[in-house]
């Protein structure tokens, strides 16, 4: 699994950082930061939920 984001789209809602804090954070501008590009399998479910709930479809999960 690989996590990528398109920071130009991010609207800084922080849903991802709340839902999956091991994988996502927000930088000083409040925009998404990926902490682990290849998170462990047990985080998969949370990462998928974050991608699904992101209001600007910023998060892509591949593989």
């Amino acid at each position, binding site marked *: 699994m690989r996590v990528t984001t398109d920071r130009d789209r991010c*609207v*800084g*809602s*922080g*849903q991802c*950082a*709340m*839902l999956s*804090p091991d994988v996502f954070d*927000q930088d*000083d*501008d*409040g*925009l998404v930061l990926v902490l682990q590009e290849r998170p462990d399998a047990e985080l998969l479910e949370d990462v998928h*939920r974050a991608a*699904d*709930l992101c*209001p*600007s*479809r910023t998060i892509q999960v591949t593989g």
Partner: protein
Amino acid sequence: MTQSADPSSETASPYPQFPMRRGCPFGEPDEYAELRAKEPVSRASLKVNGKPTWLVTRHQDVKQVLGDPRASSNLKRPGYPHQFHISEEMLAHVRLMLLSMDPPDHTAQRRMLIPEFTARRVKEMRPRIQEIVDERIDAMLAAEGPVDLVTALALPVPSLTICELLGVPYEDHARFETWSAAMMNHDLSPEEYGAAVQALDTYLDELVTLKESEPGDDLISRFLEKNRAEQVADHVDVVTMARMMLVGGHETTANMIALGVLALLEHPDHLAELRADPALLPNAIEELLRVFSISDSGTARVAVEDIEVGGVTIRAGEGILALNNAADHDETVFPDPGTLDFHRREARSHLAFGYGIHQCMGANLARAELEIVYGTLLRRVPGLRLAVPAEELRFKDDAMVYGVYELPVTW
């Protein structure tokens, strides 16, 4: 509507009227389920001015509209579905709030504000919110019950939280709270109401002027600081931004506090579940946000180009209400949507905070306020109960933000 003897007294519109009443305070208007099933994108006529609008009721379609750059939030555009009386002349003079801006103006202002509402920043605000809640509950418990929970707790908590956020000096808190509560008091005369709005506006104007010369550790000061470099806002824009925080964060959170407490008191099994397992609270809050979706029609748009949605073409210039309460009762996403279920796995997929670029900036802050209020009430006031029969409560059926006018409680 039944046949009227005088046809000329009927409204000319063949469409159903909006808003529709919620039959049960814990649900959606009865008409929504039928609309989702038979006509998910349909026409309605706005009660306030008889103008037509589209209603979008399915979860997927509401998300589509709110994520579509062709759906504008600009309330000055012809065709925007206004839900309160506003004259053309007033409209021309309105300064657009963030909520009503489109990109690129929206993007520029939102980016300046995002750092104020990150998950981390909200976490830092929690101890202060806890203090505010504890002080209010102390005061409530010091009085003899019954008290109105709306005035004793639900209104002051978000009002004081916004004071913290904006950097309103402590000595002004009481005045700020009085005015912001007055703005929500539907029993006031138009003159009294107008006076409160005016006083608050003047105050916010003075506050911004104060922060311009004496910056502090607060949202307004940081906004002014960034603005010095980026020059996206003038003085009036900054005052408008401050008012946006109050308008966006006060009545919404207050209504949600009171409705959530009512839901818990009226569902003793759910209350017992939460007592037994406080870790359930965050998901319970998502579920409460879902069932009430208090800002149902707050997600209003106007098409700037033709938009295809749910098999219907909405033409450029037509108004759209992407109803989040209808979306949040969509049975394809939330099985058995009328049932309050604190264990519901998909609860967080609700659209009560909207979706897309305008999704509520204060969502994580509102969640923190709700968690602290409900959690503290559960711990400190275990005997809390309604002081009147639930049938006597009056609900804000015609208001843009759903709520309960008064909630008399005792303990």
